[in-house]
């Protein structure tokens, strides 16, 4: 079920780091039905510029309070408008949309690999998988600040990497992943982040025969599979053509899409 809530009430907006925010709003139906990896599609203004909704992954839900939390970065005019919302304002939101992560797994060792704002959907995933599985997260970012929300939102076991070394390993998350893979063999990995990081991750997991799910981004119009605009190239597992990131994704098995 998808919902369209033209007047979801904003319950909080926190600036966490340079142009990085946590936004929460009240949308019990979305909170109830949402699966990790799914996203909401947000109208950032009543007028027609920016015209389109903006897709943002669901980062955290509080089903009891009916709250949905987003972790987002201001990169352009839509996210800038989003960041001007205050508690008590209302936003027009559709969701939950898309195919989320495969969560039919239990009693396993699981890796989460997240880069920058790509950590957001993995928080929700951890929230849902941590009871029944043994999770290790490899999260990377520019600096310590950018990774601040991680501690606020989750208590899973994290190994951190930053570009400037202000916290954790100075370097890439994939360095951490490689180091750890030398020691143990997990059952599955999930990744979200910049394309370069996903590519590196896929190279590594392939070599280690580690099944990998990735969450992708793409420019979207409808967000529901109507416009065929958000396509990305199919991977080795299918015939020639495209998959719709909004509908068949945003989460794919690594070989369903062409990352490399």
């Amino acid at each position, binding site marked *: 079920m998808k919902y369209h809530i033209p007047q979801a009430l904003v319950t909080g907006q926190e600036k966490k780091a340079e142009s990085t925010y946590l936004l929460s709003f009240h949308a019990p139906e979305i909170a109830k039905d949402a699966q990790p990896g799914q996203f909401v599609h947000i109208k950032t203004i009543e007028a*027609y*510029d920016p*015209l389109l909704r903006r897709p943002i992954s669901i980062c955290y839900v509080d089903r009891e309070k009916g709250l949905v939390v987003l972790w987002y970065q201001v990169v352009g005019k839509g996210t800038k408008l989003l960041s001007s919302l205050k508690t008590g304002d209302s936003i027009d939101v559709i969701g939950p949309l898309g195919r989320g992560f495969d969560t039919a797994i239990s009693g396993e060792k699981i890796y989460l690999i997240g880069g920058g704002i790509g950590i957001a959907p993995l928080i929700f995933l951890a929230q849902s998988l941590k009871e029944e599985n043994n999770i290790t997260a490899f999260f990377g970012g520019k600096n310590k600040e950018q990774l601040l929300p991680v501690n606020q939102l989750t208590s899973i076991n994290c190994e951190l990497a930053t570009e400037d070394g202000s916290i954790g390993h100075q370097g890439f998350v994939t360095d951490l992943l490689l180091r750890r893979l030398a020691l143990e063999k997990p059952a599955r990995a999930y990744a979200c982040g910049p394309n370069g990081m996903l590519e590196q991750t896929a190279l590594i997991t392939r070599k280690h025969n580690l099944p990998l799910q990735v969450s992708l981004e793409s420019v979207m119009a409808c967000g529901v599979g109507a416009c065929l605009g958000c*396509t*990305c190239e199919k991977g080795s597992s299918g015939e020639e053509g*495209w998959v719709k990131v909004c509908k068949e994704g945003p989460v794919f098995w690594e070989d369903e899409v062409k990352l490399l």
Partner: protein
Amino acid sequence: MIKPDMSVDIGGIRMQNPVMTASGTFGFGEVYEDFFSADELGALVVKGVTPEARIGNPPSRLVETPAGLLNAIGLENPGVEAVLKDYLPHLKGYSVPVIVNIAGNTIEDYCLVAERLSSSEVVKGLEINISCPNVKAGGMAFGSHPDMAAQVVRAVRKNTKLPLIVKLSPNVTSIVEMALAVEEAGADAISLINTLLGMAIDIETRRPRLANIVGGLSGPAVKPVAVRMVWQVAQHVKIPVIGLGGIITAEDALEFIMAGATAVAIGTGQFLNPRCCPDVVKGIFEYCQNNNIKRIGDLTGIAWKEA
């Protein structure tokens, strides 16, 4: 309060209200099922269909522009046989007429698709897309020359008994000339506008933003051009006109109707508001009620009829 008569007739297709979906923005009818029932609409126009499956253009296919959307999907569709087999049966469940948008590279392509679709009891009309800006061959060329457009229409006319709507391209010097040519050739209705040909360049990569280089511009940005074309065409043809291009609200739809449209269609508007179509139906109904309009048809062309 009066209960306005919202029904309209588009070349023999009876519609309970004047609001249709625009081709290419509603999939094959299934995608908005979570938000409203297609049975609330006047008619359902589905994605452009070609003889063979087409994979469409590579990404990126979308660019947002101020109040507009550039798309270069490239007529991705499963081909007419798959549409008949896998998609149309699902549409049987709806009580509203289903209209299929058809496209091709050659006149034979159009005829073949038209003929094959005529075999389906689900299909109540065809919309001939002679105006797709996103494919190299065909499409656009047919939509740019009155003679070629007329040829397509005449040929398709011979291959089907279904009502024929011809969708015109706005990228022409004289839209009236195009409209008169297709009317003369046997069109039962005209829909306009398809998208305006546009493009955008990324100043960082210094390359066009769309893989296809050019794309079609839709959304509120193009509405003034669309309203003008409906206004011009409706005064010159006898067949009904379907107006579209940038409709988001009932007020937008009423502008088109007053300019001369018998019905309207909504594309990009659905991306903004998934309940755009039923909301527009409701808004038109209320306008009629509040203004004591007995039949929606009484508003068609009122902006020039009562001048």
